[in-house]
């Protein structure tokens, strides 16, 4: 995986002077626990990137939100935070079906899409789940 370290701790101006910009393709480990397609891979990439930059993001956010610190330092932190790539943000991560890679009508408890869930539930493959009748 290409090391992406665009001098986040340095001043903003330095961002443009980074010698080697971050660019695709990036090699990273393909997830083995689930069905893989392009969108799953894209999501996996975001997850890995978020994990890598989590500490920095949280630290910057802490500085930016801390009212005890001088306003200029807070602004600086906020600017650094916004200058970080989008794929390092948590809100870019979307849960996907483990069986089909679908992201719509996902049942979180099982990490399955509704069709994948229904097939499995009807076959009795999910522990504790039965066709309800009352």
């Amino acid at each position, binding site marked *: 995986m290409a090391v992406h370290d665009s001098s986040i*701790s340095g001043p903003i101006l330095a961002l443009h002077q980074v010698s080697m910009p971050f660019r695709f393709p990036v090699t990273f480990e393909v997830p083995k626990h689930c069905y893989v397609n392009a969108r799953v891979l894209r999501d996996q990439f975001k997850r890995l990137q978020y994990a890598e930059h989590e500490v920095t993001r949280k*630290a*910057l956010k802490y500085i930016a939100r801390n009212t005890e610190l001088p306003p200029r330092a807070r602004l600086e932190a906020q600017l650094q935070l916004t200058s970080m790539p989008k794929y390092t943000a948590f809100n870019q991560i979307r849960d996907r079906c483990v069986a089909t890679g679908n992201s719509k009508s996902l049942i979180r408890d099982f990490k399955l899409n509704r069709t994948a869930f*229904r097939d499995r539930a009807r076959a009795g493959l999910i522990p504790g*789940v039965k066709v309800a009748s009352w």
Partner: protein
Amino acid sequence: MLSRVLKSHSANLGVIRRSFGTFSPVYNSSSSGPETTSDDKKSAKFSTPQEYIEQKKLERAQEEIFQQNLLEEEFKYQPKYISPNEVDPITGRPIPINVELLKYKPLNLPKTHGHEVAKLKFRGYNEDSLIRAAEFAARSAYYLGIPTNKITSLKTEKRLYTVIKSPFAQAKTKQNFHRTTFNKELVAFDANPEVLDLWLSFVNKHAIEGVEYKASMTTHESLDYNKQIDALAADEFELPQAYEGTTDPVAKKVEELLKSDTFKQFLEEKK
């Protein structure tokens, strides 16, 4: 000594000494018990204080004599087994009692003080494995000498999942599924922490797959516990020192950032 006293006492009260066999079992006491006339019943219902005291005395004496009789007579040891207690041809021994006990509900010891020390909660989708896990814990508690109560069932949860049966145009047609989660609880009393630790680690070691175990322990603190806590914070913390030696990676990063040249200038400006 006691029996002699009781005997003389009972003679005064007019209690007839009866052997154990003559006492009728509890379940048909109503049919074969001593006959009571309607007058007796009436007097039993509206007795004077004096009469009531006498009656109670008589009952107590009768009870004590019964207890004595239980101790005096020798019983023939005739345990009733579910399975025939045959000698195993290979080992040359009968089935051990603790193995036989697996066919019964787990035994539990009486509480000595009734101080709750731990609460074990079991959670799972399969009730049979849940019972197996809970009974295993109860039996091991019995053999470790930890008093427990009986295994109690807690509320069964049913989570409903409604999915559409077929997509788009027929999306109104739904199918309901539910997941049942069973809950059981076992409360342990009066054990000291070492024994409790041993028990919990043993239960943990032999934990069954598909059952979620959760143990919460209750400990007792001295009455000056709040003073102990206050004493800890007696020396005032200064903020930079308070964060010294922290293992939180975010805190470390914050420190690193604030010490960097960019942030340093802003921090100095303020001063």
